[in-house]
């Protein structure tokens, strides 16, 4: 495709691109494919899908704008980028909604065909932003994407409506040229994805080629760019979202535990993709039920756990409220259960498609009675795989429900993941009870369901179908050992303490908290303590602080209950502690209460992740360093 007039190619070390359009414009598909191509090409990538809760909000309005941000680089990166330097806007609303986040002097590629009076009105523009001088600080490329795509459609006799819908592929082609992405990978993908409808397949691939050719020949662009592959660790990589990683982690854990998966789940954003993914893989012996409600989803899972399955339920937002009673029952029954909560903005229906970390205290305390549960939180999309395995390990070993707290950002965000060697995964083999474990007063060998393992305090898992171990369990308080219903005051107190001690004891079975402090523990003045999806922004922010020559430490919790056994020591090693969270300060409350440290909270509840610059600014302020000096590189290499 190269010609003598092809513009020069400029090398970049990184770029952040945001694709934005109507929710029906296919921006998520476009962004995802651009990411896949970049990953396959060898870049490091990180993504931030950002879409409305409405399936199709009124076209052309700000409410209906759907965007996908992708960060590609030639070095390892931690976030989808604070602000895009390139915005592809398919209409005025997409421009208006996303312009504030674009870096000054950034590039705007607009579908000029969509810029008319009616569209301005819908987007709330009083005039044409392309001509009123308001974009003078940006480099603007006006490209007639719709009409050029329609032209292509006319040539091959596709209905105008179908042709019009292919304009996102034109945009993908254009941006693929602009960043020197391989063409064939995307053409192959289009051929496979639209195999079932040849006409759609044809127009999409033609539109893609047309967009690519337009960039090459239109003499609109002075240059195009190249982002070289990143020097990632040796290995085989795939690009993965958090929800897929969770589903695969469960499958891996099921394989390692030799227990079939049972998933009881009710569809809810942004957790449904786990149900979809697990439903696809019946060849692994996975049983899934789309239950009649959230309560039935977890109820069926508890029934399956009683029967010896690896029982899982998945949910988000209001769904975790509905499951609370059943989680309490699982605490009392002491059966293994994995409860996955993909946190989203709340309260109530809140922000279904936006991220938040505001269910931590609910996970800790959201049940009546003293009912402790272990909590595990992944930090990146690919880390969801490890977190799922860890949740299964704890649940099966300690016969307890485990709450796994992911969130909307991790669920839909993606990153390259170096595949683990499946032979190296931990063995999670469980032992079921097979014989009586107690001699009763009459000297008979009997089975008592609440006789505990001395080390773990876990009770036996005795499956129906095992002769001689017939027993009854229930939500009523049980007598220690026999499991018979007991209202005895001393026994109740003992059982409450036993259940608490069992969960607290897990601290000795999880890794100590690692601290990223180049000067060793206590070397820096400020420690940033995070949990879950703030990992990328905190780690990137910390790199930026260090790039200025200042000292800062970072520790990130995967286990929220119990905490790692050295957390108190780590906290006390630093003069100042900063806890950034996408809530109003939930972890900070826990560590202040538990360790009496004067930890400071940094909060953000906008439905979007922290930016690295926010972390940097907060740390610099604590260090008394002026943050207004020259802006550090956004994602400096470590």
């Amino acid at each position, binding site marked *: 495709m190269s010609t003598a007039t092809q513009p020069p190619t400029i090398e970049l070390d990184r770029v952040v691109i945001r694709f934005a359009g109507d929710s029906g414009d296919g921006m998520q598909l476009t962004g995802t494919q651009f990411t896949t191509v970049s990953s396959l090409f060898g870049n490091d990538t990180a993504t931030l899908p950002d879409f409305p809760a409405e399936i199709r909000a009124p076209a052309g309005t700000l409410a209906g704008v759907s965007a996908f941000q992708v960060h590609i680089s030639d070095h390892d990166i931690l976030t989808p980028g604070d602000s895009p330097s390139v915005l592809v806007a398919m209409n005025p609303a997409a421009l208006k909604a996303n312009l504030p986040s674009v870096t000054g002097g950034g590039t705007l590629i607009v579908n000029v065909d969509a810029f008319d009076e009616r569209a301005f009105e819908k987007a709330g523009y009083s005039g044409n932003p392309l001509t009123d001088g308001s974009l003078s600080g940006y480099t603007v490329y006006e490209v007639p994407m719709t009409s050029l795509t329609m032209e292509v459609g006319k040539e091959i006799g596709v209905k105008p409506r179908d042709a019009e819908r292919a304009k996102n592929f034109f945009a993908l082609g254009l941006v693929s040229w602009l960043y020197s992405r391989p063409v064939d990978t995307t053409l192959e993908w289009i051929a496979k994805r639209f195999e079932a409808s040849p006409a759609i397949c044809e127009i999409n691939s033609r539109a893609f080629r047309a967009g690519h050719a337009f960039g090459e020949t239109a003499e609109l662009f002075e240059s195009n760019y190249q982002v070289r592959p990143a020097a990632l660790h040796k290995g085989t990589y795939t690009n993965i979202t958090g929800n897929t990683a969770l589903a695969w982690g469960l499958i891996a854990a099921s394989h390692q535990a030799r227990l079939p998966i049972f998933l009881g789940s009710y569809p809810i954003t942004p957790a449904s993709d786990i149900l979809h993914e697990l439903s696809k893989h*019946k060849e692994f012996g996975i*049983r899934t039920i789309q*239950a*009649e*409600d959230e309560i039935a989803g977890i109820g069926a899972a508890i029934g399956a756990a009683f029967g010896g399955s690896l029982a899982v339920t998945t949910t988000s937002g209001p769904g975790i409220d509905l499951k609370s009673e059943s989680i309490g029952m699982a605490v009392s029954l002491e059966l293994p259960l994995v409860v996955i909560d993909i946190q989203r903005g709340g309260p109530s229906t809140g922000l279904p498609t936006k991220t938040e970390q505001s269910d931590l205290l609910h996970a800790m305390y959201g049940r009546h009675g003293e009912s402790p549960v272990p909590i595990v939180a992944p930090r990146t999309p690919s880390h969801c795989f490890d977190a799922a395995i860890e949740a299964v390990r704890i649940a099966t070993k300690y016969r307890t429900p485990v709450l796994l707290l992911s969130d909307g950002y991790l669920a839909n965000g993606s990153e390259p993941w170096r595949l683990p060697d499946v032979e190296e995964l931990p063995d999670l083999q469980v032992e079921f009870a097979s014989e009586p474990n107690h001699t009763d007063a009459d000297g008979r060998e009997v089975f008592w369901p609440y006789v505990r393992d001395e080390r773990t305090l876990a009770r036996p898992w005795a499956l*129906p179908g095992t*002769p001689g171990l017939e027993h009854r369990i229930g*939500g009523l308080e049980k007598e220690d050992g026999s499991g018979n219903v007991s209202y005895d005051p001393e026994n109740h107190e003992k059982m409450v303490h036993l259940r608490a001690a069992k969960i607290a004891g897990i601290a000795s079975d999880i890794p100590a908290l690692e601290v990223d402090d180049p000067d060793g523990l206590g070397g820096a003045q400020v420690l940033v303590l995070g949990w879950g999806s703030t990992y990328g922004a905190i780690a990137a922010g910390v790199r930026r602080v260090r790039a200025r020559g200042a000292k800062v430490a970072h520790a990130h919790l995967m286990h929220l209950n119990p905490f790692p056994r050295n957390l108190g020591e780590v906290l006390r090693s630093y003069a100042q502690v900063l806890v950034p969270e996408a809530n109003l300060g939930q972890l900070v409350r826990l560590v202040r209460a538990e360790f009496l440290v004067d930890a400071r909270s940094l909060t953000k509840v906008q439905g979007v992740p922290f930016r690295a610059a926010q972390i940097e600014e907060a740390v610099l302020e604590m260090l008394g360093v002026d943050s207004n000096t020259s802006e550090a590189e956004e994602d400096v290499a470590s």
Partner: protein
Amino acid sequence: MTDTQVPVTTRKDWTSDQEVRWCPGCGDYSILAAVQMLMPELGVRRESTVFVSGIGCAARFPYYMDTYGMHSIHGRAPAIATGLAVTRPDLDVWVVTGDGDALSIGGNHLIHALRRNVNLTILLFNNQIYGLTKGQYSPTSELGKVTKSTPFGSLETPFNPVSLALGAEATFVARTHDMDRKHMQETFRRAHEHRGAAFVEIYQNCNVFNDGAFEKITGRDARADNLIPLVHGAPIRFGADAQHGVVLGPDGRLRICAVSEVGEEALLVHDESREDPGLAFQLSRLAAGPYEPTPIGVFRAVERPEYADAMAHQLLEANERKGPGDLAGLLTSGGTWTVE
């Protein structure tokens, strides 16, 4: 779980060591006795039998059976039992529930378990009152019922549990009562034999909070006049001299007639196996409540694929199509690249 012969058992083998704690005179005792005495006749193993219950007086049932059991939370037993039955088709899973448990807080789970046709034997103890919470009206209490929570009478139209189950696409629907052990056992036996969700409503007397609720149907003196026995393949008739019968009128509606007036040939012959649940539904509504002639017996018993069987079939198909699950293959299924 094995091919060896099922051991011979007696009622005692199925009775746990726990003291039964229902009120003296409660109808639950006779239901428990009926089940414990029936179990040795069913040719099933104790270890493969599981009783799952929710909350309420009836829900204590699993504690008294020397089998596997779970006394769960209010209303959720059908959901919990679904998860167990779907993952362990080798087990015999029974659900014991009450009118509040199954039809109020757990109504959603009941109808969906029936619709899915999960292999469960569901025994609904209907006493038309909340007993464990000491006497509030239930979803089957009659309109105008005066209770602690309805001192001026209930304003609510009750559910007819049999109509509800038929409307929920249940494949086996029956009604029995606590005054007739033989009928209970025969009905439970049929329900247990049914592959799929079997629903049995049991008229059960709460002698403390709602004594005599079913007296007009199940009382020894009243039975002949008001209990309409449903017998598959037989004309539907009742009365001390079988002088009354049920007729399907030209308008498509069922009504009760004197056999002497319409003749024996005109009587509706009961057929449990009708695909169309319409007539079964009409039968369930012959009486407005348990104070006028009311059918007792199996309303409907039809075959439909059982849920766990259908799911197991899908798993088998996937295995044949894709081969057994390959973890390493799964991880590379989304496209990979290699960094040297």
